[in-house]
Structure formats: C-alpha cells, structure tokens
C-alpha cells in the first residue's frame, strides 16, 4: 500500500471511488442496494469517528449511540421547527454533537481512562431519558419524519440522495481521520495512547489534545445521525440510542485494527456487509451475537486486528 499520497490527491481518489460506488449502485438499479449500502456507509462513518478518539488516543467511548442520536434528534427538532435541507442539518448536528463531546470531555477527561468510558455510558442514558421526557421531539412515542419521494433539484429518488450524502460523509470522515493521523495532532494522540503521563511530562498538552479528539469524534458521529430520521421515517428513542451502535462502532475498528484509518474502514465494510447478510438470511438477534463474539474473539486473539495480522504476515515473508 502506498502511504505517501498527499492529502489533496487522497481526497480526490476517495471522491473517484465514491463516484464509482454510486454509479455501481445505480447500475444495479434496486432500491435495496441503497438501503443496505446506506447502513454500511453509516457504520464506516461511526467506526472512523470512534477510532479518532478510541484508536488514536486510547480512550474508549461507549456512548456512540448518544452522539448519533443527538444528531438524529437535532434533525427531528428542526424538521418540526423549521425544515432545513439535509446537508445543512448535517452541519447543525455536527455542531451539537461536537459541543456535547467537548463538554463531556471537559468534565471527565482529567480522570483515568476507565472513568471516561463509564461516563460516556452514563451520558447515553441521561440523554435518552431527556429525549423520552421531551414531548416536542416525540418523547417515548417517537416521531414521524416523512421523507419526500424525490429531490426535485437533483432529479434523484430520496433514498439515493441520502445514500449520496452518507457517501460524502464517509469520505469526509476517512479524509479527516487520515489527515489527523499524519499531522502533529496525530502524533500527539499517539503519545497519549502510549503513555499519557510521559507525554504530559514532556510538554504535550494532553487535555487540549484529548478535547480536540472528543469534539472531532463526537461531531462526526452527530453528522452520521443527521440523515437518519429521513432514512428510517419513524424515530423512536430506543432505535436512535440502540446499544448496537456502540458495539458496532467499537467492534469494527477492533476487528480492522485501531492504529490507522484503514482499520475501521476494513472492519466496517466486512462487519457491516456481514450484518446485512445475516439480518436478511438468519435474524437480527443472531447477527448481534456474531458481532459480540467477533469483538471478544478479536481482542483476545488478534489485538491489532486484521491490519495487524496482515502486517505480521507481510513482515515475516
């Protein structure tokens, strides 16, 4: 693999791949491809976002669902308040989730890593309780968000439009992760992961870096949630805050490998596709069981994920 491509040409390459994916999906001409593809792409965004904090700095976030749901509920709110186009909502959701991420990090990141993880779990439950008790966005009953049949300006069916947005978000997330990884920021994150005390002692502004990571990661997760109400049509707190988002967004980078942007991408593509297949062929409960077993299996047997296995095979030759 060529790891020396510049950021500009990388984004260009990503855009080309994305265009091919979109053209390919249109060529199949079946709406199911877009529905399934949307879910896989959404997982790419979530896994990549999780990995910016979890993989690069080593702080485990169990609250993916919270940030995701924040994005989704920001959309529901504006859908009732003053309907905005989805790309604008994506930006709004990113801002909301990013801010919550920043606040969350500010409250807990001074503590040991484990407390941060528990606090993220706590955040998910607190936010869910707030949403359940907030009638304007549907409360416990949920909210209907009717999606238009098509987008007149682009002449696309709405699901293809959503797919396209998620595709753009996936490219954004991957490009962000890759840029962070190679920047000074990324090296700072790595020092935190390896030895936070030593990093602090050698003058790395650890708290500031960690706050950047939580904000960035939270914002990307919120972005992934923004189009979700339009995708699902009927949003309930239990579906927006589902634990499977948290599990998947941890399992995918862990299975792919957490130290580079390739890991979450590979993990999300493999696990996301596998889940689509098992949900259709077996059942959704079994598919979640598979995710759990794979997660536990990989952290025990292959701590560096598929990328780690690949590198080990490669260097032995």
């Amino acid at each position, binding site marked *: 693999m060529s790891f020396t491509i510049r950021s500009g040409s990388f984004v260009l390459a990503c855009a080309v791949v994305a265009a091919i994916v979109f053209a390919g999906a249109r060529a199949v001409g079946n709406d199911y491809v877009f529905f399934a593809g949307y879910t896989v792409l959404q997982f790419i965004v979530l896994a990549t976002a999780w990995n910016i904090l979890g993989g690069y700095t080593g702080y485990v976030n169990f609250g993916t669902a919270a940030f995701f749901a924040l994005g989704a509920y920001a959309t529901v709110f504006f859908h009732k308040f003053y309907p905005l186009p989805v790309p604008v909502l994506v930006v709004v959701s990113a801002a909301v989730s990013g801010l919550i991420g920043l606040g969350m990090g500010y409250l807990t990141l001074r503590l040991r890593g*484990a407390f941060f993880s528990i606090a993220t779990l706590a955040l998910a439950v607190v936010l869910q309780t707030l949403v359940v008790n907030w009638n304007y966005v549907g409360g416990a009953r949920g909210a209907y968000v009717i999606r238009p049949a098509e987008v007149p300006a682009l002449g696309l069916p709405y699901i293809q439009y959503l797919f396209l947005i998620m595709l753009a978000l996936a490219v954004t997330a991957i490009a962000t992760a890759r840029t962070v990884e190679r920047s000074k920021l990324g090296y700072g994150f790595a020092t935190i992961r390896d030895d936070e005390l030593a990093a602090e002692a050698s003058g790395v502004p650890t708290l500031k870096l960690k706050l950047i990571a939580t904000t960035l990661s939270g914002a990307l997760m919120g972005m992934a949630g923004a189009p979700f109400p339009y995708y699902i049509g009927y949003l309930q707190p239990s579906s927006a805050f589902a634990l499977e988002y948290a599990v998947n967004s*941890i399992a995918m980078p862990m299975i792919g490998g*957490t130290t580079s942007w390739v890991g979450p991408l590979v993990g999300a593509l493999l696990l996301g596709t596998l889940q689509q297949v098992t949900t259709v062929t077996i059942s959704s409960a079994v598919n979640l069981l598979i995710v759990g077993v794979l997660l536990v299996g990989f952290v025990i047997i292959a701590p560096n994920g598929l990328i780690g296995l690949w590198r080990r095979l490669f260097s032995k030759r």
Partner: protein
Amino acid sequence: MLLNAVMAGLLLGGFYAAVTVGISISFGILDIVNIAHPAFIILGSYIAYMVNARFGLDPIVASIIALPAFYGLGAAIYQVYYLSFEKRGQDSLRGLAFFFGILFITEVGLVLVFGVDYRYVQASYIEQSWHVGIVDLPLRMLVPCLMSLLMLAVLQLFLTRTFTGRAIMAVAQDQLALQLMAADPIRIKRIAFAISIATTSMAGAFLIIIQPVEPSIGRDYIGRVFAICVLGGLGSLPGTLLGAMLLGIVESFTATYYGPSWAPAVSFGLLLLTLAFRPAGLLGR
C-alpha cells in the same frame, strides 16, 4: 408520603448495595473495569427464574445453590482476562472492549433463549406488606434489602478477618509485599473476581423478586453500580452501603415527585457530577 419515600429509598438502597458490592470488589479493589457486571446480575435473575418456575424453589435459595457455578464462571473469566490482557500489560483499552463484548453476548444470548418478555418469580412473601405506623414495608423490598445487608456483613467480615480477605484488600496496594507473605497475587485476584461474580447470583435473585426482568434492563444498572461505587469511594464496603442508600433515597424522591421515567437519569447524573467534582468519593481514600 415523605416518610414513605425515605423508607422506600432505604429499602431500594439496601438492594442497590447488593448489586454494587461485586463492582466494589472487581473495580474498586482489583481495578478491573467489569462493565459486564449488570449482565451477570440479569443472568442470575434468569437462573432464579428458571429454578423457581421448574421446581417452585424460593429464588433466594435458588441463587445460593447457584453460587458455586457463578464463582466458577468468575474464576474462568478472570483467567481469560489475565492471560489475554493483564499479563500482556494492555488491560485498559482492550480489556474494556472485552467486557463490553461479554455484556453484549450475555444480553443477546438471553434474548435468544428467553425472548424479550418480562419474567417474574413466585414466592409467598412477594404480595405481602407490613405496616409500621404510617410506613408501608412491602416484603418484596424488605426481604432483598435484609438479605443484601447480611451478604454485605459476611463479605466485610471475610475481607477484614481472614487471611485471604486481607490479601484481597492488599493485592491492589502492593503485589510484591503480598508475594513475600507467601500469597500468589494472581490466585488472590482470581478468588476476589470470582467472589465478585458470585455476588451477582444473589443480586440477580433480589432483582427478580423486586421487579419483573427482561434482558436489556441490565443497562440501567451500569450507571447505578458505577455511580454507587464511585460515590462510596471505590472498594470500601461501608462506603458502598452509604452510596447505595443515598442513591436509593434520591431515586425514590425523584420517582415520587417527578415520575419514574426520570429515575434512570438520576444515577447517571449523580455519577457525572461525582466524577466531575468529587472523584475520590464521599468517604474518599
């Protein structure tokens, strides 16, 4: 109403102490972030339910019979955890993911076996209630509370009066010193972790006596157990009891005056506040 809310809170707190005591040992003393703890409690509930439905045995008796099995399960999990993470010195990130995976597998496994319906147990005392003056004492709450206090007392005696118990308290502080006392730290930790899982068998039985159980309610307890554990100052059993009573009362008041749908936010809110302002806990070490 006020007095009843306080009493209900105290009874609830007694039960919460039983739920948390395992975490106080595994997380507080051993520093193992076992977020799957509540999932084992639900497992305990289901085992009490099965034995109760099949043989008509009292759920608490059933949970005592199941204690050795849970102890064994705990020992096995610690062994895997030790070999895979602690020994390699990468217990933080991957260890957390490991327990998160176990939590998820347990929950989904229970859904696959029992479905998502609520299950409950039969016992003669569940429907009864004592009245002392104007205060109601439903036995469904009182029995688990008293049993859990008993369990806490036994554990506290064990931890302070026996060699193994003291070794468990010491293992977090100085492993080398423990080795010099001719105790194997790994073995001690395994025993401690196994005990912490064994407590979930009884806590699970208490839970299903108090309320009907379905697989996903364990998640609500993740916040509670860690909130109590942190409030109580990590690894101190009297602190755990105090934290549990406090949370019980606060939750009971919230449920009485604002409605039960707000209750889950209380514990997590309290946890976030404690972490932000008083991370050493109420009785801070």
